[in-house]
């Protein structure tokens, strides 16, 4: 049970600041890096080297009108983006910060998966509340996609849980003392990577927001402050995804370099997501679902059984 004392409050403020700054500067890095891949510069004008670009963007978003479409369900339309971002922050609060964690739990990984499983419901609510055709198609796409890849996510994490014998992130990290799970469980690593890109709706699995097909998908009607809030949530999800990637497969903060090494690993994870965004074409929905149900899910089961076998024979 969390006790509301002063450290918790200060921690919460710092965490929010971190979330905002991470979103702002990883967003800027993404734009800069993708700009370079596109052979252009990215933002250069606002502040030195364009460093204040995201601040300017945030101010612009906040200045815009709180526009709610006439036929939208007003309450749900306003609440759903906020709640979606709240979920991202909730995820953030379960991630350990060294010895400090907001909510200490032996089952933090399980809880994180549970929170992730909530997001399609809210996306569906957001799409429904917008009452627009593009939004509803995008919302349905998002839900089918996330449901298809949540299974893959669970299957990729299960072997790790069995090997380390715990649902706690710290335990899983300490189980990687000798070798990283990326090497001992390469298939689980791949499954995790695909699943995470699909769940965070990033390219090449950005179908729910496919610009050339659905304008902005389920985000179409959300403008100004709503969009800024959703974007913040998405970048925090990116952080959570990279954090989990580094913690579950790249040895976490174990090893010689400790927390600095961990930060580098998280950053490497972010780079993987950014570069995949600039390199691949978008897949089609049926191809995406086929890829999950017909290839990744069976592969996940096979991998799970195989690792079970290995774990029990080595015991």
């Amino acid at each position, binding site marked *: 049970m969390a006790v509301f004392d002063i450290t918790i409050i200060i921690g919460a403020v710092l965490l929010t600041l971190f979330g905002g700054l991470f979103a702002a500067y990883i967003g800027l890095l993404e734009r800069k890096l993708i700009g370079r891949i596109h*052979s252009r510069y990215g933002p250069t004008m606002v502040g030195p080297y364009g460093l204040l670009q995201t601040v300017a963007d945030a101010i612009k978003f906040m200045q815009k009108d709180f526009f709610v479409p006439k036929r939208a369900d007003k309450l749900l339309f306003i609440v759903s983006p906020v709640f979606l971002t709240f979920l991202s922050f909730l995820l953030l609060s379960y991630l350990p910060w060294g010895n400090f964690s907001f909510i200490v739990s032996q089952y933090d990984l399980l809880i994180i998966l549970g929170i992730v499983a909530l997001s399609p419901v809210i996306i569906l609510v957001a799409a429904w509340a917008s009452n627009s055709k593009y939004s509803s198609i995008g919302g349905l796409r998002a839900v089918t996609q996330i449901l298809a890849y949540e299974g893959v996510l669970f299957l990729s994490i299960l072997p790790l849980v069995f090997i380390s014998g715990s649902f706690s992130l710290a335990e899983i990290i300490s189980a990687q003392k000798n070798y990283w799970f990326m090497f001992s469980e390469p298939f689980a690593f791949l499954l995790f990577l695909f699943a995470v890109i699909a769940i965070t709706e990033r*390219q090449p699995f950005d179908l729910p927001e496919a610009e050339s097909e659905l304008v902005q998908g389920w985000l179409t009607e959300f403008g100004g402050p709503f969009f800024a809030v959703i974007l913040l949530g998405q970048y925090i999800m990116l952080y959570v995804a990279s954090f989990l990637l580094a913690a579950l497969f790249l040895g976490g903060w174990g090893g010689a370099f400790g927390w600095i090494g961990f930060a580098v690993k998280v950053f490497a994870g972010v780079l993987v997501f950014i570069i995949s965004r600039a*390199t691949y074409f978008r897949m089609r929905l049926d191809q995406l679902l086929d890829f999950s149900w017909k290839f990744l899910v069976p592969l996940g089961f096979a991998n799970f059984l195989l690792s079970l076998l290995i774990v029990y024979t080595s015991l």
Partner: protein
Amino acid sequence: MEQEAKRTKINFGPQHPSTHGVLNLLVEVEGDTVYSAEPHIGFLHRGFEKLAEERRYIQFLPALEKGDYVAAFAWDDLYMALLEKALGIEIPRRAAAIRTMMNEVQRIVSHLLWLAAFGQDLGQPTVFLWSFREREPFINLFEEVTGGRLHYYYSRPGGLKRDVSRDYLDRVIAAVAKFEERLSELEAMTTKNIIFQKRTKGVGILSKEDAMHCGVTGPVLRASGVGEDIRKSDPFLMYPHLDLKVITRNEGDAFARTEVRIEEMKESARLVKFLARTIPEGPVMAGPYSETASEKWPDSMSMASMLKVFGLSIPQGEWFLRHESPRGEIAMHLISEGGPKPYRLRLKSPSFCNLYAFSRLAKNTKIADMVAILGSLDLVFGEVDR
């Protein structure tokens, strides 16, 4: 009946990001499946054929180039060749060779713009920006000699507005050589990329019979296995003397169309290099309007010679000429009753005919496929609506 009630009608465009300009598609969807797509055109209709009847021959040229704003050279040269045919002017070989060369550079530029837009349709802005990057040197070369980046007004009845230097031609060769190198990067991103292949192979298959029935032309027709190219079958300018390879594919899908266009870019690059090396020396203007050639400046701008060009009148008669633009067969039919304005000028645009095949192809596909099919047809709406 119940099944049909579940279907939703969506208006795709005219402000939709994937309709490249101003097309409105009335799409009937259920979930992600498209049951029918009906194109509604006319948002960019400016009445070119009527404008032509209201203007003197030379005054119509600027309007004409705003039709297909992606490949203005093709229309420009076709119109000039038609006027020259009607007036009986034989243009100098140097002018013909430069026009041909510019046409082929224009083909590369136009196909690059298409590749850019197609990449964007399939969800990859990198291809978009890389194509624009490769397009830039050619646009700069156009700008240098004609003064315009998209609209050129380079041809004159009887020749060209301005001559090109040897140095310029060398730079064209260098630019093309660099482009050929860079094209492999674009190929690695598109035709050799597995997701691109998955998204385009077997999508929007237009059979040979359907292609001929719908009257599609250009790369779309050639991707369906018909080896028809006006540059080969009804050539003018320097095309009869060129050793031109007509590129065809038999699959008829979006991937085949991509391949045909990429191979055509390579073929055009080869032709441009050949033409730039072998352009004959000589004047660039001939016939009654040669006083307006740039080397006779300032006399070329005198009131007398301007009046002569503006007063250009064509004797009574009927002429027809066609040409292969990057998008397909363009044709003009001119009927004159004598005097400085045409009685009727009919423009035949390939984009319009290619759009005709669209609703046939988009039936019972996915939304993503529909966007890919629309992109693969290479439509320019200035040309569709005219």
